[in-house]
């Protein structure tokens, strides 16, 4: 198991290097000049050229790339933001907790409602319960998050004045954005849960559990549930990974100082260090979340655990 984790962490280095190279290349060919956008409109060509030289933008591609990688690996330095002149890693770390809070709560809401909704739909297949649950999830999936966010904010913030419309100054501020993001997740998770559960409740071992005299809710939530979780966990994991990378729309609608807005602003201003830093961060977080998801599989399904462990040991255990 530990060997598996180490192997995965090792491959992650290459993933991050690849991502860095990719983002470097994209930014290199991207139109726009950070030096020009930093200076005012009446700056002369000489001034711009001077600034480019100072920022190291005139160096060849690979020199810039290796310079960046060496700095990042050896000095843990992702460079300074062109706009704010603040260390990129410092800014990411500052915004990170906000994003984590929003992502965690949004995914939690999505799972909390999505999973039971899917189970209820599957257990009562083709009845009004199933139809209602699936109609709700269809609305959730097809409704654009930003629109739903605006509607929520209109109703609860402007009309009823129960919740703040924007900003980020306490738990109250989390509710609307998380619900706005979570509702789409409810739809996706419930649909996945339903199809996965439908497959599992037709399995023989579910009938075996019933034949033992087990009560129905335990048959579903103990015997069938764990077996149907794998695809759902994958989906929750990827949703969580995406949200940790910043929920741009929700952050914009509700003015949350998270990573999403940071990245969008950086791209707009051609703030190379900030873009690279945040993309690298998103890649890292996503890879780590996916690793966690894969490890979670092992806890859910002993067959997967056996695959992760030493193969020799596994082969030796089977006796005819």
């Amino acid at each position, binding site marked *: 198991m530990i060997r598996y984790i180490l192997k995965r962490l090792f491959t992650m280095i290459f993933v991050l290097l690849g991502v860095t190279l990719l983002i470097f290349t994209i930014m290199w060919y991207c139109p726009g000049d950070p030096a020009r956008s930093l200076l005012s409109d009446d700056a002369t060509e000489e001034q711009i050229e001077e600034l480019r030289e100072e920022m190291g933008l005139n160096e060849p591609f690979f020199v810039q790339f290796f310079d960046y990688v060496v700095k990042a690996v050896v000095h843990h330095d992702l460079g300074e933001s062109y706009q704010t002149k603040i260390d990129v890693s410092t800014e990411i770390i500052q915004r990170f907790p906000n994003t984590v809070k929003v992502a965690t709560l949004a995914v939690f809401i999505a799972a909390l409602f999505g999973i039971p909704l899917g189970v209820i739909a599957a257990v009562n297949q083709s009845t009004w319960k199933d139809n209602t649950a699936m109609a709700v999830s269809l609305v959730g999936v097809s409704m654009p998050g930003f629109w739903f966010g605006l509607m929520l904010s209109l109703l609860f913030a402007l009309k009823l004045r129960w919740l703040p419309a924007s900003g980020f100054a306490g738990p109250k501020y989390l509710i609307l954005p998380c619900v706005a993001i979570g509702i789409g997740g409810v739809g996706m998770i419930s649909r996945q849960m339903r199809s996965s559960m439908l497959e599992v409740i037709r399995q023989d071992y579910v009938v075996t559990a019933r034949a033992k*005299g087990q009560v129905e809710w335990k048959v579903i939530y103990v015997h069938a549930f*764990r077996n149907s979780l794998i695809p759902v966990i994958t989906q929750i994991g990827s949703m969580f990974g995406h949200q940790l990378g910043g929920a741009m729309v929700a952050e914009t609608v509700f003015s949350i100082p998270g990573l999403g807005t940071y990245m969008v602003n950086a791209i707009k201003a051609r703030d190379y260090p900030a873009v690279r830093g945040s993309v690298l961060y998103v890649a890292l977080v996503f890879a780590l979340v996916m690793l966690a998801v894969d490890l979670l599989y092992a806890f859910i399904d002993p067959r997967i655990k056996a695959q992760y462990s030493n193969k020799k040991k596994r082969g030796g255990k089977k006796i005819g």
Partner: protein
Amino acid sequence: MEETERMEPFLKVEDLTVQYTAGGEVIKAVNKVSFTLSKGETIGLVGETGAGKTTIVKSILRILPDPPAKIKSGTITFKGQELLSLSEHQMRKIRGSQISMIFQDPMTALNPVFTVGEQILEALRLHRKMSKKEAYTKVCEMLEMVGIPAERYGEYPHQFSGGMKQRVVIAMALSCNPALLLADEPTTALDVTIQAQVLHMMNRLKKELGTSVIMITHDLGIVAEVCDRVAVVYAGEIVEMGDKVHLFDHGLHPYTEGLFHSIPSLTGDETRLKPIKGLPPNPADLPKGCKFAPRCPYASEVCREAPVLLREAEPGHFVRCIKKLAADIKTDMTGKKDKGIDIAAAENRPQGSATDFIKRSRAAREVE
């Protein structure tokens, strides 16, 4: 108490009718099936795939998927209790404790995410008031009884071979000493050597625990080895039922005859098997008269007109065939040589007791 037991059979299934609804079609899976079973007795349900055998036993345990399955009518009396009228709560107390089931496919009957020990323990903890420790000891005993070392309690189904999994399923089914065991093709998924082990074990357990068994199989060899009585099921009906030896020696129904002919004989110079011609009828559109008539070499207009009843041909031997009962087969047989079963071969059918049959079918299975 004893008197009532003598009067009431241990298990009595009467006029059981089960239908499935699929895509607007009504599939008549089980049609007015009646049989009884006494304590300690083993009855074999024999028939082709899709004949309704599994549906019959699943109805007894009331674990048919509803929808699409629906028990339309009938009664199932077990130890004087009408099972079909019990509440779900009362029924749960019987499932796994008084009546338990061994499923056909051991590969899928065990939950892959729980250890085999936990799965056997579950049934015990549900029905017996035992502490965790007592239950654990009992599970270990059960595992040892079916020939699995108790140390393997904590292992998962994927770490076991097919035969061992089936033994786990058997241990699970027997853990609460059920009075009635429903075995749904317990050996079909296993290879021949493991089959023998499992059958041997079931026979031993039957003797030790005095369990009554309903054994579903389409292997007549297994019937010969394990059962006391046989019921031949065709298109959701019992077409013939009787004592094993009697039925093997004097099978009356043309379908039973056909079944015996589809087993290779080792004595004759047979180059080809004699299958029953045709296919079982579509259960959504059953023939009006005898269900076997379209494939039967003896069938006449009378057979096709009205349903044929199950009648007692000889004491304890029931058959659902007008022709055989009227004992006018000989006259009917003339001129029907080209229809289905080869009549000449039917006449020369190897006669002999069930033990001869066991030998034959064992040998045939080994040849396979």
